[in-house]
């Protein structure tokens, strides 16, 4: 077993899962903001 590679794999796991969550949280926030903006626009159009 190459312990150096296993240690790198653990680092990759940390960075990878962290990166996915950061990207997903930013997308989620963007969707919420877009939802507000486009929702408001729709409301004004309806008025």
């Amino acid at each position: 077993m190459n312990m150096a590679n296993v240690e790198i794999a653990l680092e990759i796991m940390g960075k990878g899962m962290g990166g996915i969550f950061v990207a997903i949280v930013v997308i989620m926030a963007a969707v919420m903001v877009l939802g507000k903006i486009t929702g408001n626009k729709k409301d004004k159009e309806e008025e």
Partner: protein
Amino acid sequence: MGFLLDGIMAVTWQKMIMYAIGIGLIWLAVKKEYEPSLLLPLGFGAILVNLPYSGVIDQMVQGKVPAAGIIEWLFKTGIEASEAMPILLFIGIGAMIDFGPLLSQPVLFLFGAAAQLGIFVAIIVACMLGFDLKDAASIGIIGAADGPTSILVSQVLKSNYMGPIAVAAYSYMALVPIIQPFAIRLVTTHKERCIHMDYNPKSVNRALRISFPIAVTMIVGMISPQSVALVGFLMFGNLLRECCVLNTLSQSAQNELANLITLLLGITISFSMRAEQFVNPATLMIMALGLVAFVFDTIGGVLFAKLVNVFLKLAGKKPVNPMIGGCGISAFPMSSRVVQKMAAKEEPGNIILMQAAGTNVSGQVASVIAGGLVISIVTQYL
């Protein structure tokens, strides 16, 4: 007349194993209907490329005259040179996806992220088994539960095991109805599986549906530039669908384009199923690691949902059914159907399909982001 026997004399036991594997894949595709659109071309291709002196791969006829082979050409042009085939397939996939259930409940995005855990667990286990980093990362991506992403990552990282990785990725996607219930039961109680969830979605207007693919492409492009090819083409396909002014193109992407590429992708990938590459103990290990990846994807998603429930309880809100966390993989819509079936089996009348579908769709976005991130992170260490 001895030349007529040259081919027969050149058959080795390794090639015989590949013929059996090819026939086995065709049987799974036809009899069991396991991902037939990929496993059938892959199985037939496995036979084609392993025939002695096969004309579908480059040969020196009689050791003198070079002859180009169509499958080798397809592989070098469509996959090796630019990863064109898997990337173009994403246009079709994007055009097929309805992000509505996810956009109406954006919090479901988080479960898709958590269910990528299996990728990284499989990378660690692969390293423990002695695979080098680029192969381990390519094997781990089986856990993305997304065939084109697996093929693309293994190609970009120049893995020696693209054939077994593609076979494992597509086989386990077909086996989701067996793998996921097992993994979910490992980490949930009957009481948790019976949790009911209210479904009160917000309306999703056209402007949001159109701006979503643009926003995702820009955000992911800035955070993980290596994901742009995957996410960009996925979102381009989705934009074709949602803009409502290119219905013909959207239909073509969903049908003709996706079918044509799927048809060619399977038989092209079979180039990496030549006996000298495929028949070795590593293939068996890759199949086992693929299973590890799928199981830990599911467990990761479910445990994350249970963690969310702890906070929901503290906030005095109703918990989520943790099974929906397991749907955060890319196998759409199979995973959400499996979880709904489990919920109904545990308690008749329990409907969590829309939440499961939203989570499942988030898994599609998260898996391509994971693919890009794995490429960019792993290449830093090579």
